[in-house]
């Protein structure tokens, strides 16, 4: 069970916080956003950190999930859960269709293509007045209820998002530590060698792209019902960049790193008032500094530091025995 030790620790933190501070703004309000961001960052990290396929348009799938559910519940009176399912289906379809042509590209070209995808989806949200409410957004979205238990307080939403995050982290950990996960890491390391080991790299890339999109779509579905009002601004290019920054800040190819990155980038704007005016600039600066000074990411960097320190202590202890 050592494999899931980190998950147990994360679960403990998620559960204990609201019990210790039940009415704390930073836990029940900022906390919900942090959990949501963590879900998104973990999904993007599967694609970007592990499989090495960059996406600058991840917010698009978050948006498809949110808008599908919002439109179906407000305009057509659908049940919210059915609407979220419909959002997942649509996201699955869209991501599958675009994955083949897009994932054939590499490096800068892939970045450009996903960027384009994100912009196109956002323009559709802005322009689709009749359906999406255009730039003014869409309000009056009903909240979710779970087994007759309406998610009508911040704290209840906290539990919902927390449970979802733990589920998503569990899925991500399972995948990484499996045949499919090794295939993803392998094609990141060398696509030609991965193919030669019998991995259908096209199918593997499509699989992880669709999976990451589905998780983002689920997050979007939850988000719209939690917010009750959404506008295209929540799903624009800048949010995609913010997600990339979370993954890079935490450390690519580390699931807990992605959670950590999401937490930091959600808390910072709350703590620093200057953030509001210079948000995008600060994200840019963080990205640049990370790439230059700590390319393995803050979380992974700290983790390595601690491990090295522990190792040194252990070998020092062994050395003493040897003498």
């Amino acid at each position, binding site marked *: 069970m050592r494999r899931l030790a980190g998950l147990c620790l994360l679960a403990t933190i998620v559960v204990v916080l609201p019990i210790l501070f039940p009415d704390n703004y930073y836990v029940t309000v900022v906390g919900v956003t942090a959990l949501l961001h963590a879900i998104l960052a973990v999904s993007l990290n599967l694609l970007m950190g592990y499989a090495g396929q960059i996406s600058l348009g991840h917010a698009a799938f978050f948006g498809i999930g949110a808008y599908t559910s919002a439109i179906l519940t407000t305009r057509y009176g659908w049940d919210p859960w059915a609407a979220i399912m419909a959002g997942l289906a649509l996201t699955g379809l869209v991501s599958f269709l675009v994955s083949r042509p897009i994932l054939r590209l590499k490096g800068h070209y892939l970045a450009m293509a996903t960027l384009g995808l994100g912009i196109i989806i956002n323009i559709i949200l802005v322009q689709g007045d009749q359906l999406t409410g255009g730039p003014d957004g869409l309000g009056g979205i009903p909240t979710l209820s779970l087994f007759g238990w309406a998610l009508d307080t911040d704290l209840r939403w906290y539990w919902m998002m927390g449970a979802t995050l733990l589920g998503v982290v569990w899925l991500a950990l399972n995948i990484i530590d499996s045949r499919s996960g*090794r295939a993803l890491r392998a094609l990141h390391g060398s696509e030609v*060698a991965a193919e030669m080991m019998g991995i259908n790299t096209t199918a593997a890339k499509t699989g992880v792209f669709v999976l990451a999109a589905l998780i983002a779509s689920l997050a979007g579905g939850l988000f719209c019902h939690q917010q009750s009002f959404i506008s295209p601004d929540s799903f624009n290019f800048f949010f995609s960049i913010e997600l990339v920054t979370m993954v890079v800040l935490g450390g690519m190819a580390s699931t807990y790193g992605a959670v950590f990155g999401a937490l930091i980038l959600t808390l910072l704007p709350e703590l620093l008032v200057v953030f509001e005016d210079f948000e995008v600039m600060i994200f840019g600066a963080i990205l640049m500094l990370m790439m230059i000074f700590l390319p393995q990411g803050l979380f992974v960097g700290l983790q390595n530091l601690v491990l090295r320190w522990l190792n040194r202590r252990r070998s020092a202890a062994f050395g003493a025995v040897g003498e």
Partner: protein
Amino acid sequence: MALLEVEALTKSFGGVTAIADLSFDVPPGQVYSVIGPNGAGKTTLFNMLSGIYHPDDGSIRFMDQGVVGRQPHQVAALGVSRTFQNLQMFFNMSVLDNVMVGCHLRTRTGLFSAALRLPRIKREEKLSRQWAREALAICHLDKFIGQEAGSLPYGVLKRLEIARALAVEPKLLLMDEPAAGLNDTETLEMRKLIRRICESGITVLLVEHNMGLVMQVSDRILVLDYGSRLAEGTPVEIQNDRRVIEAYLGGEVQYAL
């Protein structure tokens, strides 16, 4: 019957003809070497045999099945594995994980059952780990098992690539310059490893510039020049072949004797 039959194979890049009307047969259970000067088309030949390049013309048959038109992962499924002239390690993974990737075709778990960690995954993972350990042991890499691939010296990485290819359980192993950059001790170790692999029943197709190694380890040798066949035969025949000596190998072949 031959394991691999290559017939009238041709490949050019723009104006450069890398392989021209090349035919040869590789019998099973042997070490079959392909030699020739830089740019003779050896790597291009390997790339076509493994499905990475598609030939302009000609046919490749492996165990009576066509190779041309298949993608590399499909060729791998036929039982062909390879190593690369310029290392293609998964540097982002541990030694064990690198070799476990080689077990991909011997296991089945998909993304979905992996995500839910269905019970049979545990069994499959254990099996993969065991297979990977066996492949590492053949290459005498046991002691590196827990390390990160990125931290290993070049000579070890050359053998790790072979271990990874062996984990596929291939019937044919293509090795592109396995001894390049190795010192004398490592080269000797590599020679023994190639023989061990061959004796375990895997046919080896070897590209190598180290003539001493080639002459000692090969059962048959094909000499390429500008993408065409210059000579073919046993090491003794090649060393005494007038065309080979005159053309370019000259001193080197006799030196190796």
